[in-house]
Every structure is written in structure tokens, then in C-alpha cells.
């Protein structure tokens, strides 16, 4: 069902197709990078939606398009070279992609908070932490300096930074990695966003600190009730906190499911393989680990076939002929693999 390289998907097989109650609904998002070597198709028809209070985990190996997808939502990509070629991002009844930059700015940091992967470089090194937390407060909530300061102290307390009054005056380099990530979270939460996007928020951190941050996010989510998108490539992390999980590969969502079904019954070969690579999960008899052969796909061409096909152990003719749409597998589980065509 592929026409001109752009996939037409069956309506019923949309992640949370009931976009009615969703805070955020992404529809058929396409993002392209125009580079000297040609166009890189980083995101190819991603759709999903997010209910209030829901935590969506997004997993996939490096280069699968997780970050680009999320940054496309708020047009945080460098344009050019990036271009969002099609799709819609419905938030609060508006399409974020068609907003003016001015309107979009109100959403950024106001309604949608963003946490980035590397806490070491994501904070501006020459401004105090206080300044950086206060900035969005003044920008979006129009608070006075005093009020903004007070709120900043509250926020720092909330994310668990001891003696916040003094630490406001400190510079990022005076914080440890974990603390910095807390500051990033405080900034993202500053204006009570409805949606929080955490892009590999704990990848750069130690296990112990990661555990601290995850606990923190869990607590905050219960307390504030916001929807969260949690991007990671650590399947363990997602298992602990997510409600739903989207598995991305080659710029597409290849499987989407509630967390239990996904781990109990992974249906896409890629998801299966990913889980098997974990030590103690699908080890060979001789004690060797399972691994996925081959390399991540070259995104220079729009996908006309299943992007995972070259590495897939179940590959058959159809895989090379067309890019599979998402098929419904279970109640709350869909996957894009021609093997599942019959089941759907």
C-alpha cells in the first residue's frame, strides 16, 4: 500500500487513534534533513498520541529518530537543514506546526517542557542556575523578579536540590551531573507544563543517580499529573516507569504497546531482538549474548521497504517490496511487520 514512498496507514491501526481525550496528538510526521549528501529522512510518518497523565516510553537504538521526532514537535530543529515536510501536531486544539514562531514560543517551555540528554552541555555555562530557571518564568508567566525567585526556590526544592536559596547563585559547573539534570527538570517544570518530554534524561548518568531521577519523575508525575514522553534506549528504565512504549526504528514507530504486553509479547522482530540482546534474556546456550547483526539503516532514501528487513531473521519477499503499515496485534498493541498482516 505504498504510494510514491509515502505510507498510507490503516486508520484503525494508529497508536491511540482515539485522539479525542489526548493532550498531544501527532499525525503522520515527516522530517527531512537537507544535507550535502542528499536528503536524510530522519522521521517517516510517525503518529502517536498522549493522554493526560500518561507516560509514554520511546525506545530504539541510536539514530532511530527519537530525538528528531520530539524536536520536530516544537520545531526545535535547526531549520535549515531540517524541514518538517508533512504531518500535524495537535496540542490544545491547535496544530503546533502551523503556529507562528511567536505562538510557538508560548508553548515551548510553557505548555511543553523539554529535558535534554546531556546535562553537562545543556545548561548555559556562563549564567547562574537561578537565572536559567527564572528566565522561562518571567517569559511565560510574567512573574516579577521576586516572585520568580520564590518560585525558582520552590522548584529547586521540589526536584530535591538541598539549600536552594544559595544554590540559585551557583553556576552549572558547580553541580554534579545528577544535580544538573535536576536543574534541567526544574526548568522544564517551571511553568507547570501539560506535557514533559525527556530526551534520554538519564543516559549520561550513573545507575544510582539514574535511580534517583526516575524516582523523582515518578513522584512528580503523581503529584502534578502531567503527561510525559520518556525517550531512552535502556529497556530496563522504560519497564519501570512507562504506561505505553513506542519502539522506533529507521524513523518510524515499528511497535506500540502498553508496557506489559510489550515485554511479555514483543511482536515486531526488532523489538524481540532488542530484548534478546539484554544479558540474561535470550542468551545462546554457550553463554554468548544475542546480537542484532548489521547496521542501522541508511536514511538517505525514503523507505520503500521495511527498514529493518536487512537485519531481520524472518525477512521474506514482501519485506523488500513495501514498507509495512502498523497492524493491530492485541488490545493495546500494534506493530509494523508483514508477518502480522494475516493476524490483523
Amino acid at each position, binding site marked *: 500500500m505504498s504510494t510514491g514512498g509515502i505510507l498510507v496507514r490503516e486508520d484503525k491501526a494508529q497508536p491511540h487513534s482515539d485522539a479525542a481525550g489526548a493532550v498531544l496528538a501527532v499525525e503522520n510526521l515527516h522530517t527531512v534533513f537537507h544535507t550535502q549528501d542528499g536528503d536524510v529522512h530522519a522521521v517517516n510518518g510517525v503518529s502517536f498520541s498522549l493522554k493526560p497523565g500518561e507516560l509514554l516510553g520511546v525506545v530504539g537504538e541510536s539514530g532511530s529518530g527519537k530525538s528528531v521526532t520530539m*524536536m520536530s514537535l516544537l520545531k526545535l530543529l535547526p531549520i535549515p537543514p531540517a524541514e518538517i515536510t508533512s504531518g500535524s501536531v495537535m496540542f490544545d486544539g491547535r496544530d503546533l506546526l502551523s503556529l507562528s*514562531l511567536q505562538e510557538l514560543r508560548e508553548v515551548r*517551555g510553557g505548555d511543553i517542557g*523539554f529535558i535534554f540528554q546531556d546535562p553537562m552541555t*545543556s545548561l548555559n555555562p*556562563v*549564567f547562574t542556575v537561578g537565572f536559567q530557571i527564572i528566565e522561562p518564568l518571567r517569559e511565560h508567566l510574567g512573574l516579577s523578579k521576586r516572585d520568580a525567585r520564590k518560585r525558582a526556590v520552590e522548584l529547586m526544592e521540589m526536584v530535591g536540590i538541598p539549600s536552594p536559596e544559595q544554590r540559585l547563585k551557583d553556576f552549572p559547573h558547580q553541580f554534579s551531573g545528577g544535580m544538573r539534570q535536576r536543574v534541567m527538570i526544574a526548568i522544564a517544570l517551571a511553568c507547570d507544563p501539560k506535557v514533559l518530554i525527556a530526551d534520554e534524561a538519564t543516559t549520561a548518568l550513573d545507575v544510582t543517580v539514574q535511580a534517583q531521577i526516575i524516582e523523582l519523575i515518578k513522584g512528580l508525575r503523581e503529584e502534578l499529573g502531567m503527561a510525559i514522553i520518556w525517550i531512552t534506549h535502556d529497556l530496563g528504565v522504560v519497564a519501570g516507569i512507562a504506561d505505553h512504549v513506542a519502539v522506533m526504528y529507521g524513523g518510524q514507530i515499528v511497535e506500540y504497546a502498553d508496557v506489559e504486553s510489550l515485554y511479555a509479547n514483543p511482536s515486531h522482530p526488532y523489538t524481540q531482538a532488542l530484548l534478546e540482546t539484554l544479558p540474561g534474556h535470550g542468551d545462546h546456550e554457550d553463554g554468548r549474548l544475542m546480537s542484532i547483526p548489521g547496521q542501522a539503516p541508511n536514511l538517505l532514501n525514503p523507505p520503500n521497504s521495511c527498514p529493518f528487513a536487512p537485519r531481520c531473521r524472518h525477512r521474506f519477499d514482501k519485506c523488500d517490496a513495501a514498507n509495512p503499515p502498523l497492524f493491530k496485534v492485541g488490545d493495546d498493541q500494534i506493530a509494523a511487520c508483514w508477518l502480522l498482516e494475516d493476524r490483523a
Partner: protein
Amino acid sequence: MGSYAIRRLLFAIPTLLVISFIIFGLLDLAPGDPTGQLPLTIPPEVREQIREAMGFNEPFIVRYWLWLNQFLVNEPLNLIETACKGAWCDGFVTGSEDRLRVTSWSTRSPVVDLIIERTPQTLWVVGMSYVVGILIAIPIGVISAYRQYSWFDQIGTFISMIGFSVPTFFTGVLMIVIFSVWLGWFPSVYDTTLVVNSWETFWLQVKQMIMPVMVLALFNASQISRFMRASMLDNLNQDYVRTARAKGLGEKVVVLVHVLRNSLIPVITVIALGVPQIFGGAIITEQIFRVNGLGALLINGIQGADYPLVQTLTFLFAVLIVVFNLIADLLYGILDPRIRYD
């Protein structure tokens, strides 16, 4: 940071002594003679006597020691004495009558007085051109980087390359021909006696400064705008810029607050490193517009083999270079909170 600065300054003392010795040795080796400028009609015996009177024939070490003593002891004492005249510390230091000061051979007047006399016009013209250069360069650098490869960037690059590549002795003459000879807008000769005390004189001062300042500013701006652009480009791709955008800040704030502040750190240190050049004067420009600042003083001294003058000027210049190197390093530490000297 304080102890770092002190340590560097302590290290600077032997360095500067070595530098002063080397400069002195260099000047001693240099051919040339203070009587070389005199007309050939003056007979050799007279020349010999003149040299004798200047102390030119003393042994090298003696002259060096004398200079060192005069410059490092007598001159400061003298400065204190004059500064104190009439103030609370009057009389603390006395005896200026028999203190030998560093005396220029060609003018027979104290070198330090000459330097003090020349400093204002140098600061006005060269300093102003530096400031103007910076003021032009920073916005150009910022815009060129923000719109990399746009027409603005290309033109900016082109002009700054021209400014960098055409010697000031040519731009200077060209300006004089156009603005003084053809248009008659600005004077071609800088009047150092002008005292600014009214709007009218201020306007005169502005008029006579425009050409030299512009010639030099073009040159300065060319260099600094290149630095600025490179630094901006480095920073525009940093993660924190994305963070700032994600916070919903406007482009203006993102670029002019977050990126600019970071980009300025290396540029400001480069600027600080260039400051000694201001005090060194711009020899060629000063000559063309007859500003007669420190640069002209130096070149006159060199041409007239006025070694006490050249020695003192170049040594002061060396001090400034060492001090501003330190200042640049310290500035880096101050501007960039990540850097701590200890």
C-alpha cells in the same frame, strides 16, 4: 584568582628584566648614532664631544645599570613627588633636583614627560579607532554568523578582507585625497594643540579624528569581526542554545543573551591582548595624519638613534604586553565561571 594573579606578576618581574636587558643589548648592537641626524657640516670632533656629553661612550653594562636605576627608581620617585605636590603626602619624597631622569638624546628632555605628553592623542585616535572597530565588528560578526553564508555574511567577509589586506599607508593617502583635497571636509593634519572646551572645538576634534580613526578602525574591525563570527558559529550549535529555545525564549534573547555572552569570552580576551597595540601607537597612520602620538615618537626615536627614548618606550610596551596577557587570562577566568585559577 588573586594568588594566581600575584604569582604571575611575580614571574613577570624577572621576565621583564630579561626583556629590558635584551632590548638594551639589541639597541646597543644596532647601528646608528645619535649624531647621525646632524648635518654633515658638523665636524667629527664636535660629534665626538656630543656623544661624550650624552654618555654614549660609557661601557654597555654601566649604561644599562644607569638606565635601570633611572627608570625603576628615579622616575617612580619623581612621579610620586609631582603627584604629591600640594596633596597630603607632600614632602614625603624630595630631592628631584639631583635625581637623574631618563633623558632623551634628541630633545634633551625627560622621556617620561614626552610619553605623558604624547599619550593623549594616541589614546584619542588609536584608542578610539579600537573602540569604533570593536563596535562595528561585534554586530557584524554576530549577524554574519547567525546568517552564515547569507549575502550579508559574504559582503562582510569581503569587506573585512579588504580592510585587512590594504595597507593603511595607502588607505590613509586615499582618504586624504578624497576627503581633504577633493571634498575639503576634513583637515589632513591633526592639530594636537586643539583644546576641547566647547561644542565648536569638540566638532573640530571630531572632524580631525574621523579619517585616522576610520582608517584604523577598518583594520581593527576586520580582524575582530572574524573572531566574533568564528566564536558565534562555535556557540550557535551548542546544546544550551537548544535548551534556551525549548524554554520558549525569543530568538533575540537566545542570540543576544545566551550565545553572545558565551561567544564574547574568547573575543574579549583577544581584544584585551590587542590593547597594548593602542599604546604602541599606529606608526604608519600617525605619520600619515601627523597625529604625532607614541608611534611617531618611537619611530622618530629609532630613526634618530635616541636610545634612552626607544629603550624606555619599548620596555613600557613590553610591560603592557605582559600585563595585558595576564589581564586577558584573568578576564577569561572572570567571564567564564568554569575556569578557576588557583
